């Protein structure tokens, strides 16, 4: 085992050393195989390659032991073929295959090293969804404003909340073209949700298709529908986004004859689903199948309409609640029938023009989003939801399992270290001493973990340190000092003026260069709930290393605590680093041992850590929470609205006590409730957990400068 960080030219590990470490790493494996052969195979690699293999084997073994084993076994074969980045990509592709399709798929992918290399070198024109997923997700997000998730599926289709795309595409002759195909398909699917392929208030798709869907012609009907919609949507896209239109046209090629005849009616920016549905029976009559376009996507009206109906219901509730709140504050509640007349429904495409008696209606952001979403689904905000709803609590998110009372309270083995109140939004009051909080140290883990991370990210850490040192190095000239390296001219002039005026001149005539006093105390609150198991936990630990390296060079006071919980009687706070502790081996060992535990009861953790933070003598106090999604706890009502409201309240309390909070969330599906929950705090959402270690130092730098 190594205890100090090996430099890049550190000596290679010998077979028996490798075997010991492999045994540790693959300890969980039930395969009873000896690591001796694998260790011997790894002996020939350089030290940094060896560390890389051990790291990834450990990561993979945390998910599924056999994958870790395979990675170590194939590494000697992989390294001559792949560079470091390629090796990482190979492992990630394997883990990805496991997440999506299970162990067998992962094994097949890892064994097919040549195939992977060929795909990577562009010999096979293969494009993988995992390679473009992040970029494509952001692109689609940029197009729509309404977040659409991307996921792997058997075919390219959408249920209006998620765009499903195949994991691999190889139909085009080169990889670039296949990547373009992904993009074009994703755009067509986005356009289906954006430009009303699933109906509007005027057109009911379910009804229009009912006649066909129960016959054996169903498949043919859906293929025609999809083809016709592709024509219509392409025209619309080309009108709004000409560059994208040209890209689609290039992938599509010449129109098949069967579709070319329909272009005059269908290839129009103002064409709607009604035009498609008018043409559909004509296409189906002669019994031929739909022409297959290169970028054809599937359409599943039943699934899409189901998801859409749920969303519409939720959005309508949100909008009408917001309107009733507005009405109430305008003092004109209780006249709903008039309200309906006074509200002008917005123009077809712009919910921002929702107007009340000709004046723009200032909806709160969540309701505005819901209104925009309704316009995308229905073509308008339906008049019925412009009628104020019953006065009720503001409810930006859908309640799930509220009020369900599951497991019994679990009583801890010892008295709680602290008890905290918890906010009950239904009572609009605190539940007194409701949460029992236990504080303990994280049991130390492998101190070599941190060295491994530092070795792998050596370049990045160097960069971060340099940037942070620059931040600290911003010296400041202090004027009017009793002594110093330069004469302060302003002070001298004042002194002369004072003397002339008969006043006693000040002796403070010098300026002095001093280090900037930052006076900032930062508390990091790390999610150790069960949902962080695997990737998120790995990213959290790496991020902590980056963070410590960065802040150490800055000299700010900081502390790190983890939190988890199991009902209100067992909220755990795990000490990783206290304010007064140095970043030493004990802290490093604790960082290594941060692991996924139970649930996410956030409110009590925020309250406790705020209290600790307030004890720090600093001018600015900063609480950074790092979590992977919404608050959640076992069995009781914390999951859902209650937890969101309690977390929001706890952040407000912190704010009132002068603690600034910042929340980093890894959850790209959750953006709808975050703005409400974080209320007083600022937050950022990371769509890709793997980026966390790269981003966290920058986030901190931006926050504190």
């Amino acid at each position, binding site marked *: 085992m190594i205890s100090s960080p090996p430099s890049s030219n550190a000596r290679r590990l010998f077979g028996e050393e490798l075997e010991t470490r492999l045994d540790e790493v693959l300890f969980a494996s039930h395969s009873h195989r000896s690591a001796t052969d694998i260790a011997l195979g790894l002996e020939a690699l350089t030290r940094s390659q060896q560390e890389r293999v051990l790291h990834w084997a450990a990561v993979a073994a945390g998910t599924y032991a056999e994958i870790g084993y395979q990675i170590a076994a194939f590494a000697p074969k992989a390294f001559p073929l792949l560079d470091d980045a390629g090796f990482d990509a190979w492992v990630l592709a394997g883990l990805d295959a496991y997440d999506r399709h299970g162990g067998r798929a992962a094994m097949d992918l890892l064994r097919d090293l040549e195939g992977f290399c060929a795909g990577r070198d562009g010999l096979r024109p293969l494009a993988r969804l995992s390679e473009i997923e992040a970029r494509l997700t952001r692109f689609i997000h*940029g*197009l*729509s404003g309404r977040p659409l998730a991307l996921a792997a599926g058997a075919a390219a289709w959408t249920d209006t909340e998620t765009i499903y795309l195949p994991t691999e595409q190889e139909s085009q002759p080169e990889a670039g073209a296949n990547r373009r195909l992904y993009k074009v398909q994703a755009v067509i699917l986005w356009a289906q949700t954006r430009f009303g392929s699933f109906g509007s208030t005027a057109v009911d798709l379910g009804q229009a298709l009912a006649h066909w869907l129960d016959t054996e012609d169903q498949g043919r009907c859906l293929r025609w529908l999809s083809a016709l919609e592709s024509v219509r949507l392409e025209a619309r896209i080309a009108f709004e*986004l000409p560059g994208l239109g040209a890209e689609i046209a290039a992938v599509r090629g010449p129109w098949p004859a069967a579709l070319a005849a329909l272009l005059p009616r269908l290839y129009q920016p103002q064409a709607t689903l009604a035009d498609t549905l008018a043409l559909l029976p004509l296409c189906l009559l002669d019994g031929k199948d739909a022409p297959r376009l290169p970028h054809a996507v599937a359409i599943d009206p039943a699934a899409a309409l189901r998801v859409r109906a749920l969303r519409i219901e939720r959005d309508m509730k949100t909008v009408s609640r917001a309107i009733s709140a507005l009405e109430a504050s305008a003092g004109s509640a209780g006249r709903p029938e008039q309200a309906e007349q006074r509200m002008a429904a917005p123009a077809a495409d712009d919910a921002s023009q929702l107007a009340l008696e000709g004046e723009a209606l200032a909806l709160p952001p969540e309701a505005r989003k819901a209104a925009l979403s309704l316009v995308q689904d229905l073509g308008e905000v339906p008049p019925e939801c412009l009628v104020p709803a019953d006065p009720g609590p503001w409810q930006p998110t859908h309640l799930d399992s509220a009020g369900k009372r599951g497991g019994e309270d679990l009583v801890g083995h010892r008295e709680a270290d602290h008890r905290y109140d918890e906010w009950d939004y239904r009572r609009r009051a605190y539940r007194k001493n409701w949460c029992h909080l236990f504080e303990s140290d994280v049991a130390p883990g492998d101190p070599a973990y941190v060295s491994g991370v530092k070795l792998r990210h050596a370049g990045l850490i160097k960069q971060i340190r340099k940037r942070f040192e620059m931040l600290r190095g911003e010296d400041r000239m202090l004027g009017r000092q009793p002594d110093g390296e330069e004469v302060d001219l302003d002070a001298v*002039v004042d002194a002369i003026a004072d003397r002339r005026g008969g006043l006693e001149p000040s002796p403070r005539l010098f300026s002095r260069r001093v280090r900037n006093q930052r006076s900032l105390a930062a508390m990091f609150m790390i999610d150790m709930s069960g949902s962080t198991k695997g990737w998120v936990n790995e990213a959290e630990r790496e991020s902590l290393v980056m963070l410590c390296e960065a802040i150490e060079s800055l000299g700010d006071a900081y502390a790190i605590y983890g939190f988890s919980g199991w009902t209100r009687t067992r909220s755990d706070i795990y000490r990783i680093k206290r304010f007064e502790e140095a970043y030493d081996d004990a802290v490093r060992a604790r960082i290594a041992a941060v692991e996924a535990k139970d649930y996410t009861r956030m409110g009590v953790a925020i309250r406790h850590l705020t209290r600790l933070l307030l004890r720090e003598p600093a001018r600015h106090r900063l609480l950074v929470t790092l979590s992977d999604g919404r608050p959640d706890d076992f069995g009781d009502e914390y999951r859902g609205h209650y937890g969101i409201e309690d977390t929001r309240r706890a952040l407000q309390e912190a704010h009132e006590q002068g603690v600034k909070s910042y929340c980093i969330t890894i959850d790209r599906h959750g953006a709808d409730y975050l703005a409400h929950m974080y209320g007083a705090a600022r937050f*950022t959402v990371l769509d890709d957990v793997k980026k966390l270690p790269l981003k966290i130092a920058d986030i901190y730098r*931006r926050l504190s400068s």
Partner: protein
Amino acid sequence: MSLSPELSRITEEPYYQPTGDEVALFEASYARRLPVLLKGPTGCGKTRFVEYMAWRLARPLVTVACHDDLTTADLVGRYLIVGNETVWVDGPLTAAVRAGAICYLDEIVEARKDTIVVIHPLADSRRVLAVDKRGEMVIAPDSFMLVVSYNPGYQSVLKEIKPSTRQRFVAFDFDYPEAAVEAGIVSREGGVDAETARRLVKLGELTRNLKGAGLDEGASTRLLVHAAQLIAAGIAPQAACIAAVARALCDDADMNGTLDDLVAAVF
């Protein structure tokens, strides 16, 4: 003897496209001698609005860009040595108060907290400026107006405006204008045709969708105008947008890839 900085008057009407009732609100605030706080993202037209109002109200305009080394003396004034004498020189704030001008403190959160305090007595019913060094209280004439601006979108916890400062002002929210209005602005300021302006505004809208999802801010109207100006100068639209919008927004390689995609989608 005292020296005073030259106060400039705006003689030509600056181009400003009102987007709501901000002109009427500003005029009413001016008439009732209330100070004004402009909030809004960078590049949405705050500074241009103040220039326009100064022209409209026919007052001189003194603009101070605040920064974290701005001292009270920088605002109020200081003694200089001229020959064998000390001579008092008014700072921009004092000069503006004496002349009954509009004084605009841009990005006030950047200034040091102890500096901001000097504007407090000016920004309430007292309307006086204390010039300690001269033992003078400068009483603001009715035509003097204080305007400050800041961008609430900054994420630094150290840069926030204190309630005691904030609660002296009439506050206006500024945001990017509606698409049609913004296209008009981009077309006129950037010198491009309506279709190009429409596409630039579309690009702006797409980047603003990414705020909080990788970008700190979407493209401002100012950036869109820059891109339009490059296009008017003969640069190909894609290249102009990548240089003036995409690269100006962020340094992250992945995000730049996405922004390039968005530019390509529009042009």
